[in-house]
């Protein structure tokens, strides 16, 4: 018999009303507590910026921040995301008000197909929050997402550029 590399245990089959705080706004959902946060975002709330890639926490296309920590949402039961601050790609910048990471991504023309880039950007944001001036070794260690188009060298360059932009901005704030 064929066996799937099944990644999700089918937890709690009955719906549960839950409150989620996403990008600073409260949302109510009524779903199974075991439903991965990814599918709550994409299919229940139609926030499609966060992507499905593998379903097994391997590729990182679904990366969001939970209380500031880069987290793969495809295996995170939504119940575990209650009472936490969830940040998605929709929450870090808009076309008119881009984050430093997003600006650096444009400067270095990072995306190709672009499908993995929401997750890649979220991982980079979390990395820079934790390590404001990362070395190449830090980037190798923290940036574990897959990009099938192979944009890694531009991701690396853009992270260094974003780090400079963020550090200059904070120096400026400090000097006021």
């Amino acid at each position: 018999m064929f066996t799937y590399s099944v990644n999700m245990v089918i937890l709690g089959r009955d719906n549960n009303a839950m409150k989620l705080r996403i990008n600073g706004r409260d949302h109510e959902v009524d779903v199974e507590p075991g439903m991965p946060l990814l599918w709550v975002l994409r299919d229940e709330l139609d926030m499609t910026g966060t992507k499905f890639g593998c379903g097994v926490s391997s590729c990182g296309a679904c990366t969001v921040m939970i209380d500031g920590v880069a987290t793969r949402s495809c295996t995170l039961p939504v119940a575990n995301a209650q009472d936490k601050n969830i940040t998605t790609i929709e929450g870090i910048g808009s076309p008119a008000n881009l984050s430093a990471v997003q600006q650096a991504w444009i400067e270095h023309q990072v995306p190709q197909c672009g499908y993995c880039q929401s997750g890649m950007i979220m991982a980079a944001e979390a990395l820079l929050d934790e390590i404001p001036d990362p070395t190449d070794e830090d980037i190798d260690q923290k940036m574990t997402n897959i990009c099938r188009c192979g944009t890694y060298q531009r991701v690396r360059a853009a992270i260094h550029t974003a780090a400079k932009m963020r550090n200059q901005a904070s120096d400026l704030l400090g000097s006021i």
Partner: protein
Amino acid sequence: MAEKKKRFTRRKFLIGSGVVGAGLVIGVAGLNHHVNKKIKKYSGQGLGDGSSLNAWIRIAPDNSVTLAIARAEMGQGVYTSLPMLIAEELEIPMESITVVHPQPESPYANTFLVTQQEPNAFKGYSLMEKVYAYLPVVGTGGSTTIPDGFNNMRYAGATAREMLKEAAAQKWGVSRDLIKAEAGQLIYQDKKLSYGEIASAAADIDLSELPTLKNRKDWKVIGTKAKRLDVPEKVVGEATFGIDVRPAGMLYAAMLHPTTIGGKITSIKNKEEVENMNGVQKVVLTEYGAAVIADNTWRAKNGTLMLEVEEDNGGNADISSEAIFSSLERILDEAPIATPENEGDTQSVLAQGESISATYRAPYLAHATMEPLNCTVKISDESAEVWAGHQAPSVAKDMVSQESGIKKDNVTIHTTYLGGGFGRRAEPDFILKATAVAKEMPGVAIQTIFTREEDMRNDMYRPAALSRFTAKVKSDGDIEAWDNMMALQSVSHSSMNRIMPSMAVKPKDDTATAEGAAHLPYHMANRRVAFGNYESPIQVGFWRSVGSSQNAFFTESFMDECAHAAGQDPYAFRKEKLNSHPRFAAVLDQVAQMSGWGAQDGKYRGIALHKSFGSIVGEVCELSKVDDTTFSIDKYYCAIDCGTYVNPDTIEAQMEGGIVFGLSAAIYGEITWRNGQVVQGNFPDYEMVRMNVSPITQVHIMEVDEYPGGVGEPGTPPAAPALANAIYAATGQRIRELPLIKSGIEFV
């Protein structure tokens, strides 16, 4: 039979009667039919505000320009490079452009994809080009977007520019020649009009002559690092991929395929039980497999995991990787079915004296696009609406019509961004399956998705291949004879039977099989390249760079073996065989020079040179040795001659990414079979190069004033042999089998 004959006659009649000529952009006479009178003939003319100047260009009163670009944007930058060609001639800023994807209609055909001839629709199509435009063949693949569009898009822009100038000339009562078009403005002395102000009048202009294109020296856009138009929305999560569409009332379906290749699910044992699961709307059985339709992707997927099905394995349960490779080895010893190259008398030369011989091996590979396959279909009474990222929307349209019985004219295809294509999204299977599922719930849009496991186990794989070389290398380095016998499944035979059966080829006529193996640029007096065919129920398909993906590894590794057999430097050995191919020699010199070839700096270097899709690419891999089996890939140096180049930043990106794609396959990639089933299902067992292993690539684009070649694929083929040759330089170990991890080599 009678039915068939009738159809053929009708098509012939249409072509003969000139309907094709009148309806298309053919020649000056055809131009006016095409450039309309505000009559919407093609979908590209109806998109966005304003006035259409032709099937591609629409200008709004506020001077914003909407361009209809019918090529799949899958990361290779066509939503920017084709607009650059139009902008160059139309004289508009890139910032004023919005790109939309039109329906698959005749003006948007990719004739180069089929003919491999430089088209110029405005000067007139050849008969075969007319046929492919009439069908039409609207697709993206084979690195053909620029070779197909280079003339056509510039003429589209130039034609519109002259229409705008003529409208202004008539308004001002001056000769058209005196008016200058610049940055979306028409200028004569102190008079000025924006394109938007005159576009409506310009749409009525009949041009009697073909416009003159700008001289190369006057180009302001082509050849510059224009910023990609699709990047801003891709960094904020707003780009819409197929999986992101949300038409009103849409439901989600997950596919469950038969587990055995060529098998069939014959019944579902627990339909009712699964239909009672939370959110599940319906369980369906189609000829392609079962599907669970639910109100959410996760619930649909859980439904498929609970399904209990009966399956007919089609008699294929004994397919295994071991059996496949035994068959391939046997085929190497049989007479070839085709000999694409046979110069001199290779066999006689090889029969005398000493020769060297080696057999190379490459595995089946999956595409593993980042966006798992999906397609959204809504079937209504007499029409169908489809949302998909597909490389060939004309094929998608045919397939939806065929599967649903709805007339082709009533099928609308919304082409989204593609989360990776690599050839996988040229296949019709996921369109057919989604249509079969949607048929079960008419009136409802249904997004059918393959989970990663279903995607990886139901791919159209790059075929496994063997290549057995025998060569006679003289002590002075001359290759007196070169024999290459290959064994593999035919990609074009398998794939074209699915995509466009009318254009399917027999295995012996498949030019993709020896692509990159025959007609090498190196001087070899006697050479034979031949292949045998392996028949299998395994479906094989176009995988980024196709035949070159394995043939470059085979030929460029064995060239290295020949160099070492002659005791020569691998770069010098190649160079002296390129006297009659200066473009190859220049690329080789360039990449060797960039890489510091020959430096004694503790680094190990491997070189490879390969032409594919009209472009010549040389690569040098630079390795550091961590220990005897562990290496760090520090750098790749890459030189490309793609003739005239359009967007150098995109070309650099395609080389960087193409190399990583080649390295993922070289280091990790392998799909294996056991009991007729694919073993690998997800990334942990089908690994990819990630940040820590990825090299830094330095790219040089050669300045060559020739017709452009493709750039989406040619970066991939030399990556594997450059790496394997560098490993030989570091260890003296010749790797003849991919992936490298099977030889116990690791990368950090």
